């Protein structure tokens, strides 16, 4: 085995340090002392690398990637459900000793306490401004200072529930805070996912290191959220509010909501009525007491804040103001993120706490102060220039990377608006070992620590989110994008005892989960429909390819019927219908029906829509489902490759994998999903879609009578596409009569692809849906439709349906019946959608009057 690392002597460890692991110059090395010896708390990790060797490490690296992908751990989905960026994790943990952590913990507790006091002061008495501790311009000019939130009279001792602090080590090894996240502090969920993955792939190292557990922190999060509404109720309803599936950190929202056991909602899932907040759910409106929010301050309420925002809950702020809902963190907390505050933190701390900060902050200079401005402009190359108001667009300038022109531009920018800039000293950050490109290397790193308010003060997560630059020589970044993360281990001397979670909490959690937001249900319904749509399309497509390229002659009439059916089933009309030219040269159209994702109804488009619906309800999908969905993504990618130059030589080959994966998906939903409302709606979606498409298929393929050879070919194609050909042959030998086919496809209860099977299942499911109390007498409209369809199918005379009507030369009765059934099923979907899904249009702004008068 390759001796990558030896911790025994300085001499052998130089083999590690030769390349590419270089001991940093001018920065603290996390793992090694200046003479090249491993620091004691890193020895176990380094030994582990040695014993695993290059191959072992590489295997674990790949396994971690696979687990992350299967967990759906993504970052920044960017509107592309096919290729989400998988969360980047380096398998080597960041190790910190318990002794050192105790100091950090105290310092962080104090910092969070201070930030809570700042929040209360700015939105209350404003002593800091009146006494001149903080120059008032900083706050008054900041768009994040929301005057609507002044004097809110929030419940609880602590108002700032969550706080995250970004820290780096300076050259001496001292931790320095470089920024705070208070609005929607993200990262705790990613830290938990990192822990889950790393403890799985390095189990013995994890166990033997006595790494402190994260569970207690998250239990505190639960307790705190529960206690927040103690002035309202003892069993509060808690939700996690996300901006939606296209938010960068949506994985974390879904992950945390699952881990904590609260429904994940979007703005549209909530509504304000009678001065309270409600969740729109399947069973009606359910009151919400606590909102853990991941939506930015300004987007929370269109009535009082940004009025054209798409994401908020109109009226939310007023409910919070009256104490009828508690939001964590409170709206308005974004102001605390301004780096301008860091310049005054020691004075603020003295004023509000009468203490000096235990955790130093990076040296910051607010350019609104003429003296500071002068100094900053003189030493511009030594500073990072940050906007005083952090926004998604805001960018920092790194003075040491700028050339002469860049510096001149930066100077002009600052001078134009000095109050809006803050200059911070650049701290390169300590160097941390990482496993990169099959070898040990090192990068500058950054640690984000998390705290949560409790009754006794702030509780610090024993760990955090460590991030390293993605490329050597790159500066550390403070947002989550473009960097790699690490699990953070606080090494204890003794193993931690597992704690038991109280049973009461679990029960409350289960009760909540059973009531789902309408949006979730709707997405699952469509997930089922799109899956079925894709599968039916794929099957017919596959059959078509086989027939067109088969050994047997496939006459023009057969070709015409089959291709037209394909256009009808995909809904890509007119397509082959009444287009003899295209029917003769079908290849481009066929390829487009498979692979053109922009074309509504194409196979790829249906799969994409299905994946998007899945992404919207990520928190509802099981681990196995996510694995299958990833397989599906892989298949779509190989389909794209196969079809890159149009229709390939064996076009059906690359479709097989997709069909199998879709089958696995429906099998999984049957075998391992609880029969809750989520399952029910997914299944209703599937069954309706399959019934609809089967009726359509029968209508488009069989209503036109054909000469006997052609008729047999078409009937067999249909049977083949719905996987009934073998049963058919067994039952009827070679008598390919249309009425026999209809027997199997329409009214055979034992065929899970027959029309009657779908409708009977639908009847069962619909009866189990929750019904509103004020329903009228007799059967509900959806039941009537289903019974009507059932009767239509059962009472049909198959021989009669197979008869050709003289004048029109079609099987008119079959055509009429299938049209009838399709109409009824379409009506059914409309009724279900009206009844159970939410159809509120977004809010509009009230027009404003202008003061117009003159004397």
């Amino acid at each position: 085995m390759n001796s990558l690392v030896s911790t025994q002597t300085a001499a052998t460890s130089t083999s590690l340090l030769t390349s590419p692991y270089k001991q940093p110059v001018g920065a603290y090395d996390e793992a090694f002392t200046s003479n090249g010896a491993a620091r004691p708390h890193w020895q176990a990790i380094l030994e582990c690398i040695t014993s695993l060797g290059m191959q072992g490490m590489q295997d674990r690296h790949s396994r971690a990637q696979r687990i992350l992908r299967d967990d759906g751990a993504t970052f920044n989905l960017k509107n592309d459900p096919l290729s989400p960026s998988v969360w980047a994790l380096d398998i080597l943990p960041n190790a910190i000793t318990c002794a050192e952590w105790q100091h950090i913990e105290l310092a962080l507790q104090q910092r969070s306490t201070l930030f809570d006091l700042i929040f209360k002061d700015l939105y209350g008495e404003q002593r800091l401004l009146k006494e001149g501790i903080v120059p008032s311009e900083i706050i008054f000019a900041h768009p994040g200072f929301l005057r609507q939130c002044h004097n809110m009279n929030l419940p609880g001792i602590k108002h700032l529930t969550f706080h995250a602090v970004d820290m780096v080590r300076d050259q001496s090894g001292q931790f320095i805070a470089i920024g705070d996240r208070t609005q929607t502090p993200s990262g705790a969920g990613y830290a938990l996912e990192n822990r889950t993955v790393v403890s799985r792939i390095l189990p013995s190292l994890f166990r033997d290191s006595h790494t402190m557990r994260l569970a207690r922190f998250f239990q505190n999060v639960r307790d705190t959220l529960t206690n927040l509404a103690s002035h309202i109720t003892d069993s509060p309803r808690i939700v996690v509010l996300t901006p939606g599936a296209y938010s960068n950190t949506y994985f974390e929202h879904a992950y945390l909501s699952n881990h904590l056991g609260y429904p994940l909602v979007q703005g549209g899932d909530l509504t304000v009525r009678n001065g309270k907040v409600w969740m729109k759910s399947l069973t009606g409106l359910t009151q919400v007491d606590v909102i853990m929010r991941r939506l930015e301050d300004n987007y929370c309420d269109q009535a009082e804040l940004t009025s054209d925002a798409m994401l908020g809950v109109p009226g939310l702020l007023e409910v919070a103001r009256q104490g009828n809902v508690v939001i964590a963190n409170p709206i308005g907390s974004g102001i605390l993120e301004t780096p301008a505050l860091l310049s005054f933190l020691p004075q603020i701390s003295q004023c509000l706490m009468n203490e000096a900060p235990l955790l130093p902050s990076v040296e910051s200079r607010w350019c609104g102060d003429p003296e500071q401005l002068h100094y900053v402009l003189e030493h511009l190359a030594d500073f990072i220039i940050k906007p005083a108001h952090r926004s998604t667009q805001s960018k920092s300038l790194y003075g040491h990377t700028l050339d002469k022109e860049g510096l001149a531009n930066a100077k002009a920018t600052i001078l134009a608006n000095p109050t809006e800039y803050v200059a911070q000293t650049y701290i390169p950050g300590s160097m941390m070992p990482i496993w990169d490109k099959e070898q040990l290397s090192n990068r500058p790193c950054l640690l984000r620590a998390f705290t949560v308010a409790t009754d006794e003060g702030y509780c610090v997560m024993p760990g955090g989110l460590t991030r390293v630059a993605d490329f050597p020589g790159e500066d550390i970044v403070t947002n989550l994008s473009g960097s790699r993360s690490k699990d953070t281990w606080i090494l204890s001397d003794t193993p931690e005892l597992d704690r038991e979670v109280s049973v009461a909490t679990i029960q409350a959690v289960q009760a909540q989960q059973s009531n789902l937001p309408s949006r979730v249900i709707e997405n699952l319904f469509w997930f089922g429909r799109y899956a079925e749509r894709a599968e039916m399309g794929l099957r017919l497509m596959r059959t078509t390819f086989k027939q067109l390229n088969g050994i047997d002659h496939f006459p023009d009439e057969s070709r015409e019927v089959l291709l037209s059916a394909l256009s009808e089933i995909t809904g890509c009309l007119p397509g082959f219908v009444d287009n003899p030219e295209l029917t003769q040269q079908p290849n481009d159209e066929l390829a487009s029906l498979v692979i053109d994702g922009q074309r509504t109804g194409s196979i790829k488009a249906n799969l994409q829509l299905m994946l998007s619906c899945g992404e919207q309800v990520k928190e509802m999908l099981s681990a196995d489902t996510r694995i299958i969905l990833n397989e599906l993504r892989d298949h779509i990618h190989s389909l794209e490759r196969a079809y890159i130059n149009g229709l390939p030589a064996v076009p059906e080959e690359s479709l097989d994998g997709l069909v199998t994966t879709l089958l696995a998906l429906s099998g999984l939903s049957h075998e391992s999903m609880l029969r809750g409302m989520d399952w029910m709606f997914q299944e209703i979606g599937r069954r309706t879609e399959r019934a609809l498409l089967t009726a359509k298929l029968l209508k488009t393929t069989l209503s036109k009578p054909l000469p006997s050879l052609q008729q047999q070919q078409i009937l067999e194609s249909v049977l083949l596409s719905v996987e009934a050909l073998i049963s058919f042959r067994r039952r009827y030998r070679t008598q390919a009569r249309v009425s026999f086919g209809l027997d199997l496809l329409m009214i055979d209860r034992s065929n899970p692809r027959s029309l009657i099977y779908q409708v009977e299942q639908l009847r069962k499911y619909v009866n189990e849906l929750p019904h509103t109390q004020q329903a009228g007498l007799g059967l509900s409209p959806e039941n009537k439709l289903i019974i009507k369809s059932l009767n239509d199918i059962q009472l049909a005379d198959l021989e009669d349906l197979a008869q050709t009507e003289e004048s029109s030369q079609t099987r008119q009765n079959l055509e009429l019946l299938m049209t009838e059934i399709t109409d009824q099923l379409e009506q059914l979907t409309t009724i279900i959608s009206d009844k159970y899904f939410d159809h509120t249009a977004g809010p509009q702004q009230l027009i404003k009057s202008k003061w117009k008068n003159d004397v």
Partner: protein
Amino acid sequence: MKYRVRHLTEYKYGSAVTLCYNMAHLLPRDTLNQICVNRRLHVTPTPIYQTESEDYFGNPTYYFSIQEPHKKLIIDMECVYDITPLERSQQLFLGSVTCGELRQLLAAAETPELRMTKEYLMDSPLIHRSSDLADYAAQTFDDTVPVLQAALDFTQKIFNEFTFDPTATSVSTPVEQVLLEKRGVCQDFAHLAIACIRSVGLPARYVSGYLETLPPPGQEKLVGADASHAWFAIYIPDMGWVEFDPTNNLMPSDQHIVTAWGRDYSDVTPLQGVIFDGGESQTIKVSVDVQRC
């Protein structure tokens, strides 16, 4: 002097609005020389939820929401005010600090009052300082001129150089355009004055309220002919916030009734909020009557 003010706001929607959330700055506020002795507020349809509170600037607010479908929303507000005339002459003779002195005082910001006044030096949602605005006001607010004198001169300057024209601007016309076109209504003139004063480094705020109008001699006063009005105030140490009406070239005394103040119109919008459904063809009608009583 006692006034009875009736402020009637009526929204009409093409189809029914099913739900609305509104924040109103319509309730009367008391000031140094003004108290509300009686008031009546009536909203139709009856709100299912309503609260009265006070905003950041100390203005009374009225928040309400309606959950029944409605095609018409009426907010009918009636108040009786008692206003004492402000004694100005003496103050004028006392003389105030000069613009230069005030700028220095603000830079040093040695008292809580001065520190808090800085709020009105900064940009606000509808008002952004600029060099063009500063140029327009620079001479008037020269370092050597007493602030009070400068504000009076500036009020007159706007009155002389701008034309009242209700068709020239909308609620979203930026101040820069008003400066270029030299036309607008009271709200524009107030915003313009504030923007100019902040651009030369002095604190100014927006005041909204009502103004008693008198009919031409020999004519009856028309009902609903009055309207809401807007003007500005400037901060002068030892005098506090002194008000000026550039639309009418005067200093408000006992004919101006104050309802609210803030950094600009957006802080004191009479009625803001959102509606669900039916809003595609909304119209608004406002009528105000100010009567002596």
